[in-house]
């Protein structure tokens, strides 16, 4: 049961969710080969060995520096064949999920995305998926010999199990059809903690009153090394960029800690945060529905509490 893991990188660094994918594959038990596409730091690739990859393939063709879905799917199809691997594991993301869909179709694999835990294998290979936007789970049997598994954040625990892996260059042949879509440009926040990957998220709602008040919230986020998020009306009004909008129709997060400030806790917002391990709610209204979904709550004014909280965290460090 050889396993291939597609690892994604950003600014040369392997994404944490991809390291989780390697840890997941290791826990499945097969020999694990990781494959990275485009420019990635060599030391980062070698380090994948520590988390369970016996072998690391690097397709460094510069055409792959941009995440072109069809091209990536073609490379992975070939790599699965070359490695004799039956299982592909990857992290769900704006690139990983569509690539998984295409690869699974090419190789005739059973496909599951949004997988949240290791499979049960006593009667078949059965994975647990998150459904109804985090409101429920489904146990789904993957019946085919070939399987493609897309993981949601926190589906596996990262543990050091080995030492640095050997990195082998992986040559690819790409066709024009692989590049039918042209990425003409991109805008990307750099150096910030990205919302879908963050361990801590500090999120603000309409209770923050206006974009000019986000400074204190960003200061709190910086102190916690957290990503910033917001509710839908906040991004609709253009107070914050769209990619920060959390909820049913936005980003679904699964951090260790979600701090919601001035957000009422509408069911559509909760749908995006209910996989968080701990939730802190700060709201001036004691009746705000969000308190029912919280682990810790403070009733009070955001503009008084946020600076105090930032100070208290700095003091505790």
């Amino acid at each position, binding site marked *: 049961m050889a396993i291939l893991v597609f690892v994604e990188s950003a600014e040369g660094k392997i994404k944490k969710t991809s390291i989780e994918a390697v840890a997941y594959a290791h826990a499945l038990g097969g020999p694990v080969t990781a494959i990275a596409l485009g420019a990635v730091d060599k030391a980062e690739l070698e380090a994948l060995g520590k988390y369970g990859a016996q072998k690391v393939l690097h397709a460094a063709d510069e055409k792959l520096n941009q*995440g072109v*879905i*069809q091209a990536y*799917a073609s490379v992975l199809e070939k790599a699965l064949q070359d490695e004799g691997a039956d299982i592909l594991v990857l992290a*769900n*993301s*704006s690139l990983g*999920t*569509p690539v998984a*869909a*295409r690869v*699974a179709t090419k190789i*005739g*694999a059973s*496909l*599951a*995305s*949004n997988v949240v835990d290791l499979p049960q294998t006593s009667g078949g290979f*059965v994975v*647990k998926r998150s459904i*109804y*936007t985090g*409101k*429920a*789970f489904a*146990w*789904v*049997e*993957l*019946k*085919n010999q070939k399987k493609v598994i897309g993981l949601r954040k926190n589906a596996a625990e990262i543990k050091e199990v080995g030492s640095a892996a050997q990195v082998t260059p992986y040559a690819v042949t790409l066709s024009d059809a692989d590049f*039918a*879509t*042209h990425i003409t*440009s*991109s805008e*990307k*926040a750099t150096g910030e903690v990205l*919302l879908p990957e963050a*361990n801590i998220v500090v999120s603000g709602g309409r209770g923050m009153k206006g974009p000019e008040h986000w400074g204190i919230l960003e200061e709190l986020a910086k102190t916690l090394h957290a990503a910033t998020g917001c509710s839908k009306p906040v991004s609709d009004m253009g107070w914050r960029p769209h*990619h920060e909008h959390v909820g*049913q*129709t936005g980003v679904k997060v699964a951090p260790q*800690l979600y701090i919601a400030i001035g957000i009422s806790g509408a*069911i*559509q917002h909760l749908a995006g945060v209910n996989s968080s391990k*701990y939730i802190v709610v700060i709201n001036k209204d004691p009746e705000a529905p969000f*308190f029912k979904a*919280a*682990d*810790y*709550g*403070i*009733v*009070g004014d955001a503009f008084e*509490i946020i600076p105090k*909280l930032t100070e*208290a*965290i700095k003091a*505790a460090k």
Partner: protein
Amino acid sequence: MKILVCITHVPDTTSKINFTDSNTKFDTTGVQFIIGPYDDYALARAIELKETSGATVTVLNVGLADTEPTLRKALAIGADDAIRVNAEPTDSFFVAAQIAELAKGAGYDLILMGRESIDYNSGVVHGIVAELLGIPSISPVMKLDIDGTKAKLAREIEGGKEYLEVSLPFVAGCQEPIAEWKIPNMRGIMSARTKPLKVVEPKTVDSGVKLQKFELPPPKGSVKMIPADNVGELVNLLKNEAKVL
């Protein structure tokens, strides 16, 4: 231009989710069904394209007869005709195979879907359909402009956006702010009653996945309230009880 819009029939976003039959069936008691919110964006953009460049818009759902009011709603919003593949949408591959079967050779210039369904949340149907048809797929699309046989799109990526160009035909999974949701007006509702809604039987597909059972998350414990003048206690609890700092 011919546009196919694939829509889901899903529980309203405020629905409480429950299961029956020892956690093997979705409990529809008291649940309102809607067009999937992302599919609604896809449909809205298709109707805009129809208004600006004279496209025809077909809506498609893979589902049993109870989804017809949802298809009629799409017709009321402005789609020209509807197709229902008469089958339970058991999983993404099954659904995608039905859609691809209908689209094959039908000459659609554009196939629009939602970025994901809000019941299965797979985010893969567009990719599978596109692979089966051998055309590009792009998702989640926030902006879509057509100029002749070429399209310009913006796609959301982690922490930003990517701009793309592609030739028709292709499949797009849509999300806001691609268009504003449209609400049917009285004239739309009246005309929807007589617009064609074709029912076709599914093709046999072995999708390789089988649902075993559903599960609800454990109920949340009660919230610990901390007085506003004791923020230090919150930090203490986060550090020593939750161990997240």
